[in-house]
């Protein structure tokens, strides 16, 4: 394999009502963040199944971030409260399995927070780059 500059692959799940709009606002304001971030639109952060996250890691993602409305502002009133519990439990479990904790994150980004969206992505990518390639989840069952 040819050595090249390490470019992480980041999957960002954004809820349609707040965070996806926040990402659009970052675009409107031309706020740069790394092209490695690829956004998948979901109606609500509570639509994000832990299986999607694991699948992304499985297929080579180096970091997965979930963005939703701030607690209390969910378009569907309670969706992000469930997200918060589900992801707290899942992240704690991944940590328990020894997966680097910097690879997963939940961030509340409102439709007005374009700057926060860009800053979050810059920060997240930076953290993931410092970890390097994601091998652990792939290797979890392959003892060498």
């Amino acid at each position, binding site marked *: 394999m040819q050595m090249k500059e390490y470019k992480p692959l980041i999957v960002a799940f954004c809820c349609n009502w707040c965070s996806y709009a926040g990402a659009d606002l970052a675009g409107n304001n031309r706020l740069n963040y790394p092209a490695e971030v690829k956004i998948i639109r979901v109606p609500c952060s509570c639509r994000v199944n*832990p*299986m999607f996250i*694991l*699948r992304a890691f*499985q*297929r080579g993602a180096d970091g997965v971030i979930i963005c939703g409305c701030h*607690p*209390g502002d969910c378009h569907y009133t*309670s969706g992000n*409260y*469930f997200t*918060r*519990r*589900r*992801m*707290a*439990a*899942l*992240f*704690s*479990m*991944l*940590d*328990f*399995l*020894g*997966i*680097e*904790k910097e690879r*997963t*994150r*939940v961030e509340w980004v409102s439709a007005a927070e374009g700057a926060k969206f860009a800053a979050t992505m810059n920060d997240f990518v930076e953290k993931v780059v410092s970890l390097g390639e994601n091998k*652990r*989840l*792939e*290797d*979890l*069952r*392959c*003892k060498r």
Partner: protein
Amino acid sequence: MQKITKEMLIDKATELLNNGTVSLVLGWKKGEYDYDVTPGVFESVEELKKDFVFGDFSAANLSKYLVKKTEKLEGKILVFLKPCDTYSFNQLLTEHRFDREKVYAVGVQCDGMVDIEKVKKIAGDGILSVDCNGEDIVVKTLYNDDMTIAKADVLAERCANCKSKKHVAYDELLGESGEVIDSNRFDEVEKLEKMTADERFAFWQNELSKCIRCNACRDACPACTCEKCVFNNPNSGVENKSPANSFEEKLFHIIRAYHVAGRCTDCGECSRVCPQNIPLHLLNRKFIKDINEFYGEYQAGAEVGSRAPLVDYTLNDLEPGEVFDRGDENA
């Protein structure tokens, strides 16, 4: 405390069959050896007399079998439940998985089950018979003299760390029902939490690499009663088509633990049935411990109709990013 014998159970089952209360009996069936006891369904007194057993190896949690057995049942089925089994029983009722009216539940006092692997470690292979007389068990083997081992030394892990001797559901009791126990069941989880991430990874890589994906854990788990498992569901996107390098092959255990999180009663069947002796219960206990710490003490199955923590919320729950900060404190 009296000792509960298999005869007492057979007598009870006979009585209930004969007086027409039940038409089927769900119990434990003898195998080739004393220690390979399996769940069994008995339709007659003759069958009971022939194959029914109860003892230190009647470990199987029978509650799960009620889901299928009551589906087309006319009348009632008798089921014997140890204290930890009653939690699964309640959890299944919470999830409307069977009709309570179709079940006659007899709670059975439990003095802890023996782990045959532990016995083998002490007594060696070629075990012919294992007899219990209270505090000790007597092992006869092909190669050695009879051996007497303290039962406490060969108790299954889940019984050594028993969380409750209390029957939380039954129509009738055989023997005594005890109390919820302040056990040390989270010690092992805590030990892992205190390791570095690298050490934890090494631990789990070592354990999970042994998995042969036989699905025994799933098949025995009383929380895994899905009509169709997500891993068999072609629309789920995670169906197991070719085992090599497929998604589910690697992440099966995480997803499985996640799916039962908040619903798992910590009955320990997953680890008991694992042919590779992977400590799968630690994954479940990690979720239980986290839930207790994040959202307040919760014991699945302690009562019927309680709301599982992951389908609930409060306005001030902890943020997902905070779960790690806690971890650092432990480190």
